[in-house]
């Protein structure tokens, strides 16, 4: 399971390096709201696995400061929405420190948190805020979609000297998948082809990967071959994999759960049109959340973010299938 894979990564890295410690709300005694850190307190003691008060600004500040001082902290923030309280430490301190010390300083700081919709937990607990971090030079942004990726990427993150925003998804903690034992490490900037195809390239991340794979399976039954690409890390972004796939399929659909405006999908679309313009047979499609606060009502919440039929429809627009259908009538 995704959460077990994360725990395995933290456990292995804590065993490997005494400088690694983890702090967060309810992560020690209760094992974390999502049970990622269960059992770690017993194993590593209260010095390295620490509960904190509900004070995100303080937690993030502690984490950034400890990282600058040479430790390797993991700060777990219960909801990415709450990370806003620590934005100054992240944006103005962690992201800039290495550059502003002439390259001498290091901030090996990992913020683990989770976002996304899916529980009817309303507008302040459901956001997908990766674009905020993506926008800030100096931050790495990681969004694993599978248990194996979660472990490999977290282990790699914990060995970096620069701040990493490790963004999990509240819907993925219970997903299952094979996870390699031991030294399973996934470098940043290496995307993964989650499904190979020839007609359309579908780019998605985090919880949009399982949804895109479902759409691809449905489309396959209709004879449409979709390639699903998971960049896994948004910063750095595996542009090469995206461009190679698009030059093969000539069509791209980007799916993001976050609302459309100012999103990462728009940035990837601009990269595609700039680098692969002459390979495109259709405009790049973006399937994204609506530009509204996520509604509390479960039906409205579902309507506010991409669902399988939205993805299927976008792929069909891309291959101009509507024109066929209309013409055949």
């Amino acid at each position, binding site marked *: 399971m995704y959460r077990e894979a994360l725990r395995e990564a933290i456990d292995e890295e804590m065993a490997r390096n005494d400088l690694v410690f983890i702090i967060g709300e309810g992560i020690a005694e209760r094992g974390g709201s999502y049970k990622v850190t269960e059992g770690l307190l017993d194993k590593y003691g209260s010095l390295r696995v620490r509960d904190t008060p509900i004070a995100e600004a303080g937690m993030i500040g502690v984490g950034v400061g400890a990282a600058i001082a040479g430790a390797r902290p993991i700060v777990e923030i219960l909801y990415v929405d709450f990370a806003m309280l620590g934005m100054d430490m992240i944006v103005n301190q962690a992201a800039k420190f290495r550059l502003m010390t002439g390259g001498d300083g290091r901030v090996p700081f990992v913020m683990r948190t989770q976002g996304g919709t899916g529980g009817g937990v309303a507008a302040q607990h459901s956001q997908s805020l990766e674009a905020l971090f993506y926008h800030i030079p100096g931050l790495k942004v990681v969004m694993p979609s599978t248990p194996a990726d979660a472990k490999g990427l977290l282990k790699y993150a914990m060995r970096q000297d620069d701040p990493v925003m490790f963004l999990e998804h509240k819907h993925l903690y219970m997903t299952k998948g094979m996870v390699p034992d031991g030294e399973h490490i996934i470098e940043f900037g290496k995307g993964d082809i989650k499904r190979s195809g020839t*007609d359309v390239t579908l780019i998605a991340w985090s919880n949009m990967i399982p949804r895109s794979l479902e759409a691809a399976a449905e489309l396959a039954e209709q*004879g449409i071959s979709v390639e699903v690409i998971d960049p896994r890390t948004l910063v750095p972004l595996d542009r090469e994999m995206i461009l190679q796939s698009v030059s093969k399929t000539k069509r791209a659909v980007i799916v993001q759960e976050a609302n459309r405006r100012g999103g990462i999908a728009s940035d990837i679309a601009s990269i595609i049109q700039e680098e692969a313009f002459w390979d495109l047979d*259709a405009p790049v499609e973006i399937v994204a959340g609506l530009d509204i606060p996520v509604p509390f009502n479960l039906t409205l919440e579902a309507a506010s973010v991409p669902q399988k039929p939205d993805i299927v429809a976008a792929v069909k627009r891309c291959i*101009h299938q509507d024109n066929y259908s209309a013409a055949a009538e």
Partner: protein
Amino acid sequence: MAEAILVPQVGQDLTEATVVELHVKVGDKVAKGDLVAVVESEKASFEVEAFAEGFVINLPYSVGDVATVLEPLMHLGAEGETVAPTASASASEPATSSVVDVQSSVSELKTNSKKSSMAVDGPLRASPAARKRVFEAGQMLSQFRGSGPLGAIVLRDVEAQLSTVAAQTAGAQSVPGLKNLKSGHGDPIIFIHGFGSDLSSWRPTVGQLGLENPMYALDLPGHGSCWDLKAKSFDELVDYVAQTISPLGGSLHLVGHSLGAAVAVALSERGSIDIRSMSLLSPAGMGAGINAQFIDGFLGAKSEAALKTWMQSLVRDPDDMAPVLVRATLKARSEADLVGSQQELARGLFENGTQLFSIVNGLRRFNGAASVVIGTDDAIVQSSDVIARTPPHAALYKLSGIGHLPQIECPSLVNTIVARTVKSAS
């Protein structure tokens, strides 16, 4: 009888011309010499005149339409007369054949000819990938029909159309020096033009034969696009043609006019090519005499009026020599030194009215199907020689009241003869 005014050849080897002005409409009476239309290609524009008096009884084009060169632009006839639809009508809608099943992985999706109704007015729309593919294939975007949003040409349209073309020409290889005038299947038919002409003279014939065979034509050295290839003797001409068509391999049918007919027979003597049939129109080399005055006058003519006089001697009825052909010849001469090359060639072929080559023995030895077509009023070669020396196994068609250009003077009859000759040997 309805007579066609042809779309002029508006430049070397161009197949299409845009109708930019029309000065008549169906039912109008025109006098000989009236300006009826102006057509334009990327190279030049041509005024088209009526060659005879009559009424416009058929005018399939509007201003802005693209017309096929040397196909009828309009028909003249008696008042109230109608013209039977000909195969050339299909030439105005070539794009429809391009609508085929899509060769994409979206196999169950089919294109539909109705989709052209999706098109909207405006600039030609095409996806970047489609544009790139068209460019790589060396084609023009305007040749493709779009099935995408707002009628845009998308990749599948290009791929489908290109694969159709590829399939059609699969049996017809691309050979340097040979122009593929029509794709098809079966043994290829090669057309060889006469002295002073070029391969484009066969375009009207090709579409009217009703044969499925792939059809090729070539320009003889000193003619058309090969104007700068010097040939100084008949043998050099034959060498060139033998070399040019050899990549085709297999069996061939030859159709030659005048000098081209002589080259065809000489090729059969080489024995290196399996020639199934020969259709020889007004063949040269069947006797000693040739109209030297014509050769000199034709090559020496500088003005349209002078050239017209000489070219009219090719046909019995001067009206059969469409002014557009005279102008096209003049135009071609202005673009390349055809005259110089042809004068040089003429010196190697003819000497004071004597033909320096003979195909009489060659034709006698040819054991494939052969047809000889000769007009009794041929002013260039002596019809009596041709008639006397055509061997018994060749079919001889004596056409009374016809001059040196039977394919222009009585095209349907000549087309029937050629088609029959090819079929008899298939």
